[in-house]
């Protein structure tokens, strides 16, 4: 009896794990994302294989996605306590998209009216608080900013930097945190130029340090 009960529970565990690991369509069912060149290229390739127009492939996949979305919602809902309380969380979308642009963090400090870089990602010359900023937990948090996501959180992050800078540099007056565009060039271009392209800041926040002391 015990063996049978064990087998039943294991079967339920496997079913839950597999089901919860199936991709949630929410991430994929964003119309704007489907219009992006990467997605359109993929639809085009699939359409070529199937020998049907790209629009048809896209429409069928969208319909399929909606069906899957409803089905997953109906089944995953009751399962939620299992991962929530016992850690059996799934969700394995890792390196799903690797775009040709990213961003890097730069932190600048103003002292006596002059700005100087304090921290620049991957720059050993400017590595203030580097061991903390590179630690996996903070790196993971910052990686959202690299993908231009969670812009609303950037000021809070800049405030946290400023709090520490105010203590570390008693004479400093302002801190500026920014995420700077990084373009990944084609290999031939990179071989010719020797470095990745660094562009303008897309997130930026400046904090007065005086009030933090």
């Amino acid at each position, binding site marked *: 009896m015990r063996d049978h009960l064990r087998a039943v529970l294991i079967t339920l565990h496997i079913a839950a794990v597999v089901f919860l690991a199936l991709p949630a369509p929410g991430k994929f069912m964003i119309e704007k994302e489907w219009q992006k060149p990467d997605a359109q290229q993929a639809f085009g390739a699939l359409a070529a294989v199937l020998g049907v127009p790209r629009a048809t492939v896209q429409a069928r996949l969208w319909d399929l996605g909606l069906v899957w979305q409803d089905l997953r919602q109906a089944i995953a809902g009751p399962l939620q306590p299992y991962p929530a309380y016992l850690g059996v969380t799934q969700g394995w979308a890792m390196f799903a998209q*690797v775009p040709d642009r990213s961003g890097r963090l730069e932190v600048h400090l103003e002292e006596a009216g002059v700005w100087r870089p304090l921290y620049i990602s991957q720059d050993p010359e400017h590595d203030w608080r580097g061991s903390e900023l590179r630690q996996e937990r903070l790196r993971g948090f910052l990686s959202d900013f690299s993908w231009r996501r969670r812009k609303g959180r950037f000021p809070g992050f800049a405030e946290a930097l400023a709090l520490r800078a105010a203590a570390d540099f008693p004479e400093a007056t302002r801190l500026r945190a920014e995420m700077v565009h990084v373009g990944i060039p084609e290999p031939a271009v990179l071989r010719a130029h020797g470095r990745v392209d660094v562009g303008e800041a897309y997130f930026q926040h400046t904090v007065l340090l005086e009030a933090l002391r």
Partner: protein
Amino acid sequence: MTAPPGAWGRWVALWSTREQGTSLALFRIAIALVSLHTVVDAWHSGVEAWVWTDVSEGGVVRLADGHWLVEQLGGASLQTTWTLMGIAAGGCVSVLLGLGHRIGALVTLQALIAIFSLNPASGGGHDRLITNALWLLVLAPASETLSVGCRLRTGRWTSERPVLAYVRYLGVIQLVVMYSMTGMQKLGSAWFPWGGLSAVYRSLLMPSWARGDWSAVAWVFPLTQVATAVTWAWEVSWPLVLYAMWARRTRTRPGRLRALVNRLDLRTLYVVVGIGMHGTVEIFMNVGPFSIITMAWYLCCYHPDEVHRGWRWVTGAGASRPSPEGGAHG
């Protein structure tokens, strides 16, 4: 046990299989070390004061305080985080030593779920692998050998007492689910020929992942294209490992495919590629403890007899003993 005939009977028999506890014990030790490292490294680097601290105390976000354990400890604050980290570290030590390891695993699991819930944006796949492993360790008789518990019980550090093998099998299934699902979701064109198979090349140049400036990778672009193709194919085809494990378990049965898979040791082929891939990622990229926690799960792929043989081979401690299962390892 005597299994009833039929598919269900075989299914019940599979999950009632017993074996020595060495593989499970090593899995227990590896998971405890990685979990402990996760907690201690966060504390040592001081990063908990950034990510698991409320914005009002110098953290980067307003913490979520909905987890029951966080509520019980008085709400989200740096003090609560430290308390949870201390509880988790204590639990890890219990799991590591194999002394009340099931309770230790449950305590660590709950503390880590609570910590990770404070700021989900600071986590990743490694956290899921840690909590999944800890739940399996709550279920697993993983301290029958190589543990203080074993020493206290038998006077020796090791024991040949058989334990249920199902947790090890579930470990393999978790690996299969993780790899195949991550492969299936790699839908960006950079993973495919029409995107130039440029995913690995681009990943190595992303400041958010790369450990340094690897611009020189442009000179070995074809190599990164091969790595991209191999990574994708290797991940999506992990379900083959389940077949390989089954083929090993039933190796005395006839069949050319079974014989071929066993001769090649397909499972070890996948593990070797994995070690190479995760090792390379660990050297060039910063993805936290993901590589080490994943490789810890690989221990589930190996029957205790194989572990013993491997140990004897490494230490040169005599010829291998025949397996009690007649070489039929699952």
